[in-house]
C-alpha cells in the first residue's frame, strides 16, 4: 500500500430510530478508520444494523450522534466520492433503461463530454465482463449479471470508496465466487477502496484485508481483525489454507459470542 492516508473515519456513531411504538437503538457506538485503498469487510449477526451503518456511511441516513468523515470532511449527504451497490439488484437497476442507460445515468450530471462519458461506460462494462450486453435490459439478464451491471454503474461513477451492502446475498454459490473475485480484481486494478458488508463469514475472510466484527444491536465494533492471508487469493487454494480456517473459526466464534451477548462492550460504548 503506497497510500496510507486515512480515507474514512467513523467516530462514536450512534443511530436511534424513533417511531410511534418506541425507540430502537440500532447502532450503539461504532468507531473505526479506514485507509485509502483498503478493502474492509463488515460482518455481524443478522439484525445487527449492518445496513444502517452502511446507509450512514453513504450519507443516506443521518446518524443520531457521532461523526462520519470522508477525506477529513464530515459526510452530510450522498457524495460523488462514494458509490453504493445495493443488495436488491432487481430494485436498484431501472428496468426501463438498457444496461448501458443504467450505467450512464449517474454520469449525466457530471460535466463530461459525450466521448468521455461513453468511454467510462464502455470501460466499466468491459471491466465486469458485460460489454456484449450493453443494449439489453437488466431483466433479460441473470441475477449475477444484473449485479455486475450494478457494480459497473458504481465503478463508472469513479468513486473513492465502493460501498457494498450484502451484494451477493441473492445469487447462487458459483456466481457468488465469480463476483467475489471480480470485487478483489477491481479493488486491485483500480485503486478503489471497498467497504463490503456481508453476513457470510467465509466471504468476509476471503475478500477482506480487514474484517470488522459487529456485535448484536445496539451495535459496536467487537473486533477489528487484520486478515494476514497472501494478497493473491484464489477460491480453491486460499480457502484451503490452514490460516483461512483459523481466521474463519475465529470470526465465527466472535459472532457466536456476540449472539449470546457474552462480548464486553468497549469502555466508551456505555
Amino acid at each position, binding site marked *: 500500500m503506497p497510500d496510507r492516508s486515512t480515507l474514512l473515519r467513523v467516530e462514536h456513531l450512534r443511530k436511534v430510530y424513533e417511531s410511534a411504538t418506541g425507540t430502537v437503538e440500532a447502532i450503539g457506538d461504532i468507531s473505526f478508520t479506514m485507509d485509502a485503498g483498503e478493502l474492509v469487510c463488515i460482518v455481524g449477526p443478522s439484525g445487527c444494523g449492518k445496513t444502517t451503518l452502511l446507509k450512514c456511511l*453513504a*450519507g*443516506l441516513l443521518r446518524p443520531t450522534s457521532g461523526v462520519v468523515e470522508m477525506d477529513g470532511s464530515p459526510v452530510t449527504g*450522498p*457524495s*460523488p466520492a*462514494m*458509490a*453504493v451497490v*445495493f443488495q*436488491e439488484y432487481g*430494485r*436498484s437497476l*431501472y*428496468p*426501463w*433503461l438498457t444496461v448501458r442507460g443504467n450505467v450512464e*445515468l*449517474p454520469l*449525466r*450530471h457530471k460535466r463530461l463530454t459525450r466521448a468521455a462519458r461513453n468511454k467510462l461506460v464502455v470501460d466499466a462494462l468491459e*471491466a*465486469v*465482463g*458485460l460489454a*456484449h*450486453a450493453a443494449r*439489453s*435490459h437488466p*431483466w*433479460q*439478464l*441473470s441475477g*449475477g*449479471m444484473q449485479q*455486475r451491471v450494478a457494480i459497473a*454503474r458504481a465503478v463508472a*461513477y469513479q468513486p473513492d470508496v465502493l460501498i457494498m451492502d450484502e451484494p451477493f446475498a441473492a445469487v447462487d454459490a458459483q456466481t457468488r465466487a*465469480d463476483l467475489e473475485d471480480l470485487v478483489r*480484481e477491481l479493488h486491485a486494478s483500480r485503486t478503489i477502496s471497498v467497504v463490503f458488508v456481508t453476513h457470510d463469514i467465509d466471504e468476509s475472510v476471503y475478500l477482506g484485508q480487514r474484517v470488522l466484527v459487529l456485535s448484536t444491536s445496539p451495535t459496536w465494533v467487537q473486533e477489528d481483525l487484520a486478515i494476514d492471508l497472501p494478497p493473491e487469493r484464489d477460491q480453491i487454494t486460499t480457502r484451503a489454507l490452514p490460516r483461512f480456517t483459523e481466521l474463519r473459526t475465529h470470526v465465527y466464534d466472535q459472532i457466536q459470542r456476540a449472539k449470546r451477548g457474552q462480548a464486553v462492550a468497549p469502555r466508551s460504548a456505555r
Partner: protein
Amino acid sequence: MTAYTGRIASTARSRTVGSRIATSLLYPLGLPTLLLVLWGLVATRTTSRFFPDPLTIAEAFRETWVGPAFVEDVLPSLARLGLGVAASIVLGIAAGTVIGLTRWLRELLEPLLEFLRAIPPPVLIPVVMLLLGITDTMKVVVIASGAVWPILLNTIDGVRGTDSVMTETAESFQVTWWERLWFLVLPAASPRIMAGVRQALSVALILMVISEMFASSSGLGYRIAYFQRNYLIAEMWSGILLLGLVGVFLAVAFGLVERRVLRWYHGIREVNRA
C-alpha cells in the same frame, strides 16, 4: 479477467408467419361476421323498420359519411376529441406528478378529488355551457373534465408508489431532480399512467358524443341525434357503426403506443412467466 458470457433472454418466435396471419385474422373477424349474418337474417324476417338489413346500413354509411359530411361532422368531432384527450393527458400527468410527490398536497386534495371524480361529467355540460357558451371550447372542456380523472388519480398512485430502493439509488448517485423525474418517477409510474389513459379514452369518446347531442350544429353526436329525431333509421345505425369504428381505431392506436412505451414492462412480465 475471465470473459463472462451469459445468456440474454429473448422472446421466442416459433410459429410460421402464414399460420399466424391466418389465425390472427380468423379469430377477430370470425364472430363479427357471424353476427352480421345473423343480423341480416333477422332483418329480412322482421317487419320492424328499426332494423334495416346490413346492406342498407352499408349503403347509408357510404352516402352519409363518405363525402362532405366527413369534413363537416366527423373531422370536427375527432379534432375536439383529440384536443380533449391531449389536454387531459397533459393536465393529468402534470398535476398528478406534483400531487403524488407532495405529501401535504396529496392529503389536502385526495378527498376532494375523489368527490369530483364521482360526479358524472355529463351533468356538468349545462354548467360549462353557461360559462363558456355553445362553443368548441365548451365541448373540449367537457371531454377533458371527464377524461382527466382516471389519468390524474392513476398518476398520483403511480408516482407515489416509486420503489424505495430505486429512489435511494438515485439519491446515492446524486441524480438531479429533473433526471429523477424523467428517468425514475415517470417511467416507474408509466404502467399506471397508461392504464389511466386507456380508461380516459373511452370516457372521452362518450363525452364527445354527449356534448354534441346537447347543443351543437355539427359533429357525430349531433348527426346521430338528428337522424334519430327524423326517423332516418339506416343513417342512424350507420352513425353508431362509425362511432364503434372510431372506438376501435382509438383502441388500436393506443395499443401501438402502449406497446412502445411499456415495452420493458411487458418484457418483464413475459420473462417472469417463462
